[in-house]
Structure formats: structure tokens, C-alpha cells
């Protein structure tokens, strides 16, 4: 049963590979054929050339890498503060972060667009990277809950040895919470890699585009009717989805541990 379910789950991936290798006429054949009548490997080269894949790949890698590091680090820092440092109103801050998760992202789109426009950041990568330095409400929630499950006597022992909050955070908490921030990093990287709307509205010039925009440019609307070069799209899509897959497989052990540990109940200090 497990094998059958696995094959079922992988079927779309195999179909994508099959379409990537088909000629135009093969794609629309009735009844559909899984194996191409003629393997057209040139779809890979043509797809890459059509959208200028490698420069978009470089752009996306830079944006995704910076925003992932920034988002994870800032969220961990805020989560640490909310769980470990006693200051007036920390519960209110926490509820504000949680509350902001309930607000649809689209609500803030126009005001933030106006802000970035006035800052002169239209057609730059800043609107895609800058918000990451201010944390992510969901990540802050995860971090705060995770930190609260770490016994306080670890901090107290470190403080007796003269460690301050920065030392405790970087030398004790970060190693202890590795599964958590690796989980966050995988989620953040995937979100940034696949982000479509923000690059769409902020990036005017093609030389600044990300891969998600490049992939979408395979589809057009001729006379208002959708038209897509499916074989080239699927061929390029295989390359497009590789980096998040690699990141996942490299870190999957920590990812599983991270997800598992999130189920543990946090203690209120």
C-alpha cells in the first residue's frame, strides 16, 4: 500500500518529466501517452535560453539567501526576548505578533507599496529583502514556544559564569534550537524562492526579476486566451524546483526533529 501511495504521489513529478521531454504534438495526443514518441532533450536548453534562466537563478538565490538568514535570525532574536527577558508588556507584544498573523497579507500591500515607493525602492530588491529583518509573526511564535520549553536553569548557570543575553542566545540557545531554526530556514527559503506577487509588483526591469516571474513568462494570453509552451515550461520547472528540494533533503533530519519538537507543550515562565 505504501509503495502504491508513493507511486501515486510521485506520478505528477513523472508526468512533468515526461512532458518536459515531449514534442509539441505529443503533449496534446488523445489518448494521452506517458512516454514521448521522440525524446526532445532540446526543451531543456530552449527553456533555459527563453527566460534567461541563469541570471534569474542568481537573482533569486541572492534574494532568498539574504531574506532567509534575516528572517530566521530576527525571529529567533524576538522569540528569545519574549520568552527569556522580563519586560513590561511582553505578553501584549506577543499577542500583537500573534494577532498580525490573522490579518490577510493583501491588506497591507498598498500601504507598504506606498512606503517603499517613497523610499525610492521601487524596482529594487529592497522590498523583497528588507521586511525579513523585522521577523515573521509565525516564526516568532514558534521560537517563543520552543525557547519556553528550554529549562531556565541553563540560562541561570550561564549567568553565574558571567554570560549576558547575547552570549546565552548565540552560544547556548542557537545550538540547542538547531532543529527549530533549520525548520524555519527551509520554510523561509521556500517562501522566498516561490514568492510571485512581490517581485511582480516591485520589479520593473527584467534584469532584476526572480525565477518565479521568469517561469510565469512561459504563459501568455494571446487575444486574452491562455497559451503556454508546456514542454519548455516543465523542463525549466524541473530546474526551478531543484534548490528548495536540495535544501529540504540536506536538512530533512533536522526538519523532522523540528516539526516533532513543536508538538511539545511550552511552559510559561
Amino acid at each position, binding site marked *: 500500500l505504501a509503495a502504491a501511495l508513493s507511486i501515486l504521489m510521485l506520478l505528477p513529478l513523472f508526468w512533468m518529466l515526461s512532458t518536459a521531454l515531449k514534442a*509539441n*504534438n505529443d503533449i*496534446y495526443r*488523445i*489518448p494521452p501517452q506517458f512516454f514521448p514518441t521522440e525524446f526532445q532533450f532540446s526543451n531543456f536548453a530552449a527553456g533555459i535560453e*527563453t*527566460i534567461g534562466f541563469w541570471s534569474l537563478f542568481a537573482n533569486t538565490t541572492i534574494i532568498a539567501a539574504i531574506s532567509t538568514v534575516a528572517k530566521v535570525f530576527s525571529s529567533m532574536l524576538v522569540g528569545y526576548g519574549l520568552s527569556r527577558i522580563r519586560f513590561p508588556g511582553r505578553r501584549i507584544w506577543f499577542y500583537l505578533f500573534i494577532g498580525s498573523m490573522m490579518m490577510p497579507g493583501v491588506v497591507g500591500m*498598498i500601504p507598504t*507599496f*506606498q512606503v517603499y*515607493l517613497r523610499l525610492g525602492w*521601487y*524596482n529594487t530588491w529592497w522590498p523583497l529583502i528588507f521586511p525579513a529583518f523585522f521577523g515573521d509573526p509565525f516564526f516568532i511564535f514558534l521560537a517563543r514556544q520552543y525557547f519556553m520549553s528550554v529549562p531556565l536553569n541553563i540560562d541561570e548557570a550561564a549567568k553565574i559564569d558571567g554570560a549576558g543575553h547575547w552570549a546565552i542566545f548565540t552560544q547556548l540557545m542557537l545550538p540547542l534550537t538547531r532543529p527549530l531554526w533549520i525548520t524555519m530556514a527551509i520554510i523561509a527559503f521556500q517562501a522566498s524562492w516561490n514568492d*510571485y*506577487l512581490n517581485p*511582480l*509588483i*516591485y520589479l*520593473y526591469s*527584467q534584469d532584476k*526579476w526572480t525565477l518565479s*516571474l521568469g517561469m*510565469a*513568462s*512561459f*504563459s*501568455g*494570453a*494571446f*487575444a*486574452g*486566451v*491562455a*497559451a*503556454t*509552451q508546456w514542454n*519548455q515550461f516543465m523542463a525549466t520547472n524541473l530546474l526551478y524546483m531543484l534548490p528548495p528540494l536540495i535544501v529540504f533533503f540536506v536538512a530533512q533530519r533536522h526538519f523532522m526533529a523540528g516539526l516533532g519538537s513543536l508538538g511539545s507543550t511550552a511552559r510559561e515562565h
Partner: protein
Amino acid sequence: VNRKLAILVVVLLTFALGIQMVTAQDPVTVTVMTWEGADTNAAIDAALATFMEANPSIVVERLPSPNSGYGERLSAMQLAGELPDVFWSGNDQMFQYADQGALYNWTEIATADDTFDLGDFAPGAIANWTAGDGGLYGLPTLMNTYGVWYNADLFTAAGLDVPAPGWTWDAFFTAAETLADPAAGMFAAQGYELVNPNEGIFTADVCAQNAGSAAPFADRIINPTTITVTPELVSCVSRLAALVQSGAITPSGYPGDGQTELFIAGQIPMLVFGQWLAPSFMNAAPAFTYGFAPLPVADGVEPADAIQLYDAVGIASPADIENPEAVWEVAKFLASAAWESILLSAPVAPPAHIPSAQPYFDTLSAAGLESAAASIQYMLEAPTKLPIRFTAPWASRANDVLGANWGNILNGTTGVEEGLNAIAEQVNGIITSASS
């Protein structure tokens, strides 16, 4: 001293004139943004290259944009003051931006241009790209036509006349009754454009109007002000509903996806769809004789009086363009001659500019689709056109009303007259509240 001063003045004047001459010779850059895919953009680039060769004083720079989210991208560019000089636009988008005063009014330049005759566009095209204030805020580029793709072999085998321009609704309904095989699960017609909620009622209205209806369902293509249900519309929808209920025509909500493939496989005698399927059929080369006929008319309606559907996309320019003359030259080209070469590789839709449409028709004919070429030309040149859907700021609310009622009318849950009157009453209410 005077001599030196005179020499200095001459030198300065020469320098200033030189700068002016260089400036005058600098080409003007015009930016263009499309919503097309990579292949079509390549064909557009090739066409623009020929334009630039013929107009060395103008450089056209095409800005790419994915089709998905095109509207959002356009809005962001408008907020940033970065709208391109010419951009692809839907009819509704054009009116939305024109209402905001965001578009350039081409009326004066177009009227003064002796080399470009707005009368060369298909009937209804320019009228529907003209705003309420009489301003021409854009130009139509491509038009969609809606008709019936038919499997000629199945018609001939059943002893039916093959559909052709001027065929009647009686012939369509008879063919649907004859060709259906509900027991075998075979519909006579995949009636997408007849049964889908947003467009079906407008297609049915073609039947009513050709039958001499006193008023169209929607009184205007753009921003209609009144919705009317006539006895002819009730009669046409009743016949359609009877065929849906008998299993001859697909019901409302029947998925349109995959029907093209079933037609290619010879399993659907009629497909009520648009001309844009032509390239797919040309690629697939079905193993039977097939063709494309216009939507039928009523008995006795002359081709010159036929009423068909209107659907166009086009181009527009922002109000603050710096070089209107240069932009107009590019816009003119993109609304006419450009399509003579672009459509050769993908004959998806006819240009609204009739003199530029001949290569499109020739391409279809060369691929054995003479019937499609003739039918599309017939529909394009139909003097009276009806809307295919609501085009107004309140369209989504009106579409909700259609969605709630149209399927029930076709499947018999609601009486035809009762259901149509309910639609008219609710949509008229929406129009009244939107205008107050």
C-alpha cells in the same frame, strides 16, 4: 576686441546649434508592455524590428510582464508613475483607467492622421474603445469570435447539412437533437459558450436578437444601463434548456477542460467555442473533416444583417506620455500591420483592423481551414454586435447573479421566464445601486 567677441559668439552659436542638431537626431524611445508568452513576444519583437527599420527616429523597447497578475503589475506601475508608453489592455481595463483620467486621449491625433483610417476597424471595435466622453483612449488589436466547431463527417453521416455562415438556430437545435446519443453518454454539443454562467445568456441572446427581439439583453456592450428579457430570449433559452435536460447539450458547470481533446478524438459533433482553438486543431490534425461556423441566425436573416458577439483586447497609453506623436506611430503599428507577421506563427485571433487580417485568413486557409477563415471574417464584419459578458465595474456582482440562476434555468430547477426575469431584476438593481 570686437573681432574676438564676434568670433566667440559665432563659436558659441555653432556649438549650441550642434547640440540642438544632435538632440534632434536622437531617437525617441517608446516602451511597450505585453502580456504574451515568450514565443509570441519573439514574434512581436521581430515585427517591431521591421517598424524600427522603417522609422529610424523611434526605438521601441519591449518590457516583459508575465500574464498572471498582469492587472496587479499594471496597477503597481501606475502608482509608481512607471506605466509603459503603450501597454496591452483588456476592454474593461481601458475603461477603468480612462475613468481615472490615467490614459492619453488619442482622438485629436487619430482624427488628424490621414494615413490611418479608424473606419478600417471591424464594426463595433472603435465604438467600444471610445469612452463615454467621446475620447479614444486606446485602440483595439485582436478580436475573438464565437461559433461552432463541427465534425463534418458526423453531420454528413446523419444526413444533416454541414454548418456554414447563415445557418439557422433551427438547424443547430435539430442537429443537437439528431447527433446526441445520451444512452452512450455522447453529447451532440459541448455548449461551453452557451451553458457557462457568465457568457451563456449573452450567446443565447444572439439567437433572440437574430429572431427580431425588440431589445437586447444588455443595452450596451460597455457599462450597460438596462437588462431586458424579451419573449424571443425566453423562447431561445427554453429550446436550449430542453436540449440540456434531454442530454443533447452539456449542462451548465460541465467542465470545458478536455472538451477540445474529445472533439479532436471525434467524440463530440459540435463544440460551441471561440476561433482561438484553430492552432490546436491545426497541430493535432484530427482524422476527420472539420470546420468552424458562425453562431447561427434566424430564418431569413441576410448575412449583412447578422448579429454576432463582440470581444476585443487592445492597447492604451498613459496620460503623461512625453512624445505622443512617436507613441502614436507605435500604437498605430501595433493595432494594424504588426499582426500581419505576428499571426503567421500562431493564428489565434483576427486583428480588429480588417486590412491587416488577410494574412491571418490566408494562414487558416492554407492549413485547410477555409471554413474557419470565411466564418471568422463573416463574424468580424457583422454590423451589429452584442456583448459576450458584462463589462462594467459591477460585473463581478452581476456574474454572481448569473452564476446563481443560469444553471437552474438550464437544468429545469427554475422556470425559464421566471429565472430570466429574476436575473433581470437583480442585475438592474445592481446597476441602479452602482449608479446612485
